[in-house]
């Protein structure tokens, strides 16, 4: 997967699931087989892109993510496979 150097802080193992509503992070890699990763990438989930977590269905799953000018709903099971770098200081959990 394409790795872009960046000065964001890396919280090991952080994924899209860790974002709360309004949080923004940079996509690092997609942990899915080629074809499925491609589909995500065509929708804007490219390594290096900024992703903002939006609203979700009741219960937090699926959640809408804002990426590259679109809003895309992802299930938790998929969001878990998208590794991200959190910018600036990591959020308290």
């Amino acid at each position: 997967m394409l790795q872009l150097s960046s000065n964001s802080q890396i919280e090991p193992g952080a994924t899209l699931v860790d974002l709360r509503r309004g949080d923004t992070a940079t996509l690092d890699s997609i942990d899915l087989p080629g074809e499925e990763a491609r589909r995500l990438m065509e929708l804007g989930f490219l390594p290096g892109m900024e992703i903002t977590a939006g609203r979700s269905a009741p219960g937090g799953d699926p959640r809408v993510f804002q990426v590259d000018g679109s809003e895309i709903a992802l299930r938790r099971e998929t969001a878990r496979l998208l590794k991200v770098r959190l910018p600036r200081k990591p959020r308290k959990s």
Partner: protein
Amino acid sequence: MSDCNGCAGVPVLELPGRKGAVPPARVAVIGPPNSGKTTLFNRLTGLRQKVANFPGVTVEQHTGVAQLPDGRETWIIDLPGVYSLSPRSEDEQIAHDVLTGQRGDTPQPQAVLLVLDATNLARHLMLAAPILSLGLPTLVILNMADDLRKRSGHVDLKALAAQLGAPVALISARQGEGIDQIFEFLAGAMPKPLLRELPVLQDVPKCRAWAGHIGNQAKYRPPLPPKWTRRLDALFLHPVAGVVVFAFVVILVFQTIFNYVTPLMNGVKWLFAVSGNWVASVLPESLFRSLLIDGVWKGVGSVVVFLPQVLMLFLFIGILEDSGYLARAAVIADRTMAKVGLQGKSFIPLLSAYACAVPAIMSTRTIENKRDRIATIMIAPFMTCSARFPVYMLIVLAFVPNWKVLPFLSTQTVVMIGLYALGFVMAVFTARVLKSSVLKSGRTPFLLEMPSYRWPTLQSLGLRLLDRSVVFLRRAGTVILLVMVILWVAAHVPFSHGKPPALENSVAGIVGHTIEPVIKPLGFNWKIGIGLITSFAARETLIATMGAIYGMDSADENSVDLQKAIHRDLSPGGAVALLIFFAFAMQCVSTIAVVRRETGGWKWPLVQFTYMSVVAYVGAFLAFHIIG
């Protein structure tokens, strides 16, 4: 949602070989999902293919004719939306094959109209790379100019055209803005795109970087985030308010239908009674008059009276579809879908099955996973389609008193919503069984693009209602009319002493009596039995049959009220049994045909028919015996 019965899968127009003249050019419309290709297609051709505000509405190619200003004609081919030219699902395969000339039924187009959403240009430009590399003359169309302007976005069209090496047009297909530029392109020389350096198509990040570069060169300024979409999502996707709003909308739909549209229905009923009496008075007493009055007026007429209600239902569905709310409903419902092992993509076909299972089953083509697709096809006919709706209306109006449960909620509405829920629960249960046994499969990621909310246009809603009326009346005037004529003949033979027999002794009566032992355990008599048999042609034929039978049978034949008559023939338990039978049974020839076509054989339609019949019979049996 879209059309029902008959036209399933037939391209809008056949491509006839025109002798002598130069054959018209063939131009394909392609673009990402929900970029407005079909809206543009309808603009160019004057046709009315189904459109809605969510991705994946078009699942097969449609062809229509555009009349150019100089009188020449061009064939326009509308294709399903694609994000790239590497096909994964069946609808994408179709788009890919047509564009590359690999599809037998559609010759390769000579030019391409590439439709991109101007409000999301940077990403959508990615598709320009594979399309331009086909080398076909291409017009790049930036749609939704009105949205781009309103949200202060900007793009330099000249610079973009220079970067792409192809002409560019900024239009709004919805408003009809800029359509003349497309006609100019079609009427002109249609130049091939100039060769520019294109990225390696298989490399998505490189394609995106290329698209971003082109966007920058064209001074593309993306529009501000859609303010109202964010505000409305704060309501519709709110954990509590979202669910309350959803429930409120559903209640509102049915309350309106029962309280405000049913009076309209009485008006239509009155029209049929008056016109029927007039026809009866001017025609001499004859067998032909009997056929016309008993078969056509009473039979077909008793179905047509439900037109106002059906239209009101479709008006609401149309508003939900065109506004973009359905995509949110899909997100809210996804949890349930995930629990039964279905993916989110199954939800949109299931929703459209509320109109008709035929287009719903076709729209499962957007589902890449074969097993998920078959599971969705298997459960779609359980959703309450619009042919069941008049049957439910008749029984509910005849048997359920209109009491108020809450100030804004009546008993009839509760029962009606319950019937819709019953179909959904049965669908979910069946999916659970299938997905945990024969159709088990691995998970595929759920991705659904949320469209911005848009105001439904009056024109689009009006056209939907018109189309719906045509479909409804066409069914009444063809399938149902034909069944009524057959029924009338069956009810008038064999003649004895030059006179038709009493209904009970006619062929129709004998058939009804023959199946009575089978249906008696469900609380149905031989007359309902005749209705059940005819309803396998189309569900609402039950109403026509009962209307005709009561007209032919009773002594007071001029004043038979169908609701009262059916009340005499069914016990409350029998009425519930009838509702359950209609909720579960597969009484639809068109659905069986489309399932056979989409699954490529008789296996699945046979399994489905048998399963649904057994469930319907057992369900009706239990209902009748529990309620009595």
